[in-house]
């Protein structure tokens, strides 16, 4: 056992760190990213303490640490990594996975301490912050040198990861939103899937989709919400459950409704002004909140906040919800009834879904940037896309990968065309609103949306105030 302490060594450390703390002054905790990488690499090389897995120092092989948060994708990327090492025998990719919250804590402290993974899966809500704080390698020179064809990705996905001529990621996958329905409940109410796919929606009365929601909402006496005798205090089956208040982006909650009503978050990538005070948004959010507050066809915010809409849907408490394509597996696996996916209803401006996607980024502190780039390029190539697609957990950013995914879902008899049709439809998608200050906008909008959903404030007033607060950040 080697945890005996050498008091003298500790005392030395203590004194030196005291000096560091005292003399280094304010600068002491701050990390020069490049300097950070060095000790980290030495730490990895320290022979005695190091677990055997990381001892390729004997050979010429380089180990690239690759971080991702979705455990369901891990087997797919491990298969990609194995394929990659076949053609690049001197590069070994080690996949490190941690759940969403821990993942980011670990990446951030890793950047401070010099131990972040070489390549890590990045998210649009997070990457501008890392980029502006000089933590990501600009891969544009690599892209140009190796002639990577950005046109191979689905339109728009590549743009999300660039800013002012620099590029911080190559797209790996994408997601859209669709309606999730409980087939058994639809059948019982006499609603066909075709009817649902052709439904329209508006913010005034919900359109034919609003009628379907009412038809699917049933009280204790078995009366549905279209009937005058419906008792909204004794609902046993809700027609619709939204995923809560949705915060700043409402990705799976309200963004599709709002944008199909003519709302625009802002003027595009890295805009410096939000339009949360748009009456079109207020109208939409009020409709969304009133599903519960006025109509009683949707559960309360309190009901949704705890375990979430997915749980309520899975428990058979609600007939429909809207959710992102990354959740397909959960819905299909967890429900005891038949689950299906339908197109979003047609709003005044058509069908609109947020189009979001993940990409890998290289950390500036990586000691092996060339090898990291090789892996990153492979992970965003048709070869890896086809492998990932064949696992049927996510839609790859390249069409051939999407086809592989569709085949995998088809083999499992799951129809996911509602998501893919949305992605390929002309003007069917809008991009995730990437701007600065995302981490400050979040808390403001969280509280605002909550209070609207709870009926504490009318949407128009609350959103106007919040919009002023958000735009003040950019001043």
């Amino acid at each position: 056992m080697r945890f005996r302490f050498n008091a003298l060594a500790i005392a030395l450390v203590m004194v030196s760190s005291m000096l560091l703390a005292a003399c280094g002054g304010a600068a002491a905790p701050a990390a020069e990213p490049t300097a950070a990488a060095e000790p980290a690499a030495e730490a990895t090389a320290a022979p005695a303490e190091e677990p055997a897995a990381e001892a390729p120092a004997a050979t010429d092989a380089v180990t690239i640490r690759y971080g991702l948060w979705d455990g369901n994708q891990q087997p797919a990327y491990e298969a990609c990594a194995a394929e990659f090492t076949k053609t690049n025998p001197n590069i070994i990719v080690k996949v490190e996975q941690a759940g969403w919250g821990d993942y980011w804590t670990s990446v951030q402290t890793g950047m401070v301490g010099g131990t972040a993974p070489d390549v890590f899966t990045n998210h649009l809500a997070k990457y501008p912050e890392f980029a502006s704080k000089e933590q990501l390698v600009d891969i544009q020179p690599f892209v140009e040198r190796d002639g990577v064809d950005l046109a191979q990705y689905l339109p728009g996905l590549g743009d999300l990861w660039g800013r002012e001529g620099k590029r911080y990621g190559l797209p790996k996958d994408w997601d859209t939103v669709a309606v999730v329905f409980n087939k058994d409940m639809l059948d019982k109410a006499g609603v066909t899937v075709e009817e649902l796919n052709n439904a329209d929606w508006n913010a005034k009365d919900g359109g034919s989709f609003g009628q379907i929601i009412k038809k699917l909402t049933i009280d204790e006496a078995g009366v549905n919400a279209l009937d005058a005798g419906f008792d909204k205090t004794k609902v046993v089956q809700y027609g619709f459950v939204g995923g809560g208040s949705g915060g700043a982006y409402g990705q799976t909650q309200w963004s599709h409704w709002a944008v199909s009503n003519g709302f625009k978050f802002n003027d595009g990538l890295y805009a410096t002004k939000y339009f949360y005070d748009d009456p079109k948004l207020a109208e939409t959010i009020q409709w969304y909140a009133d599903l519960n507050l006025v109509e009683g066809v949707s559960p309360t915010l309190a009901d949704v906040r705890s375990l979430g809409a997915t749980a309520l849907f899975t428990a058979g408490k609600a007939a429909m919800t809207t959710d992102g394509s990354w959740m397909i597996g959960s819905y299909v696996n967890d429900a005891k009834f038949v689950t299906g996916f339908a197109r979003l209803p047609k709003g005044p401006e058509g069908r609109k879904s947020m189009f979001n996607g993940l990409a890998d980024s290289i950390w500036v502190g990586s000691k092996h940037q060339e090898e990291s780039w090789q892996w990153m390029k492979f992970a965003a190539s048709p070869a890896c896309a086809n492998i990932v697609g064949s696992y049927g957990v996510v839609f790859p950013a390249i069409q051939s990968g999407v086809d592989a995914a569709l085949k995998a879902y088809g083999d499992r008899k799951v129809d996911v065309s509602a998501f893919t049709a949305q992605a390929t439809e002309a003007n069917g998608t809008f991009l995730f609103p990437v701007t600065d200050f995302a981490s400050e906008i979040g808390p403001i909008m969280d509280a605002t949306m909550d209070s609207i959903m709870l009926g504490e404030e009318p949407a128009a007033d609350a959103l106007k105030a919040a919009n002023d607060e958000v735009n003040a950040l950019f001043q």
Partner: protein
Amino acid sequence: MTTMKKTKAGIPTQKIIAWVAISIIILVTLFPVWWVVRTGFSSKQEIYVDTFNLLPVGPTMNNFKRVLGMFTSEEAVAQGGTASGMDFWMGLKNSLVISTTTILGQTFFSAMAAYAFARLKFRFRDQLFFLYLTAMMIPGVVTLVPNYILMARELQWMNTYRGIIAPSFLMTPFAVFFLRQFFLSINHELEEAAKLDGASIPLIFLQVILPLSVPALSTLAILQFLGNWNDYLWPFLIGKDETMRTLTVGLAVFQSQTPQGAPDWGGLMAGTTLSLIPTIIIFLVFGRRAVNAIQFTGFR
């Protein structure tokens, strides 16, 4: 004490009330723990279906098998679980090594300090003691980053047992405070008798104070051991490598994998049940010791 007309029959009534209270407390305490076990044995498709059922719904051993790594990752994903299961035995070993070592050091060194604070006279004693106490009040969010930098850069103890153990090996303010308060309440007579016999301070500490404090020491050691067992953030950040994961860190893989996803309840609760077993055993074995020690030392 005032004397009261208290009949002998009154005492059983008190006893009955006491036992009713104890029973209620036990019920309230145990029920949620049972819910953990029950969910561990329930199948994923039924978890939300019959939430009023006290027994496992759709009883299955699959969650436990997944936790113990008896399925391949593809099979686990097909069942709706996460691919990366926890390595239970590796986690158990790491947890045992880390918690045991930490507690041995912490208890002994903290007892030394506590003794000095409680019984010895020296300048700045009370000031220093209060300084120790203040360490409990520093928000961990702030010391986390400097401590992480210390481990990752200056000491380079990432991925080592040392790195995980070190911060609480030599002391925790909690332990020093706890033991000082106990030492304060120990009778002076025995110490003074030993002193008159010419015993030196280390001898008094080892032969009078420590034996007298066995209940306090063992209570502290057990509680700190179990608290250490449940430590999450620090072992997670320092023990990046899979071979360094403790049971509690290993459990986290069953938490939600995506920003909006639900946790893998079955896997999470099966894992929790399994990691609870060693801690219960430890408590029962050493907890009994602690009580027996009270009688053994003849301490009134």
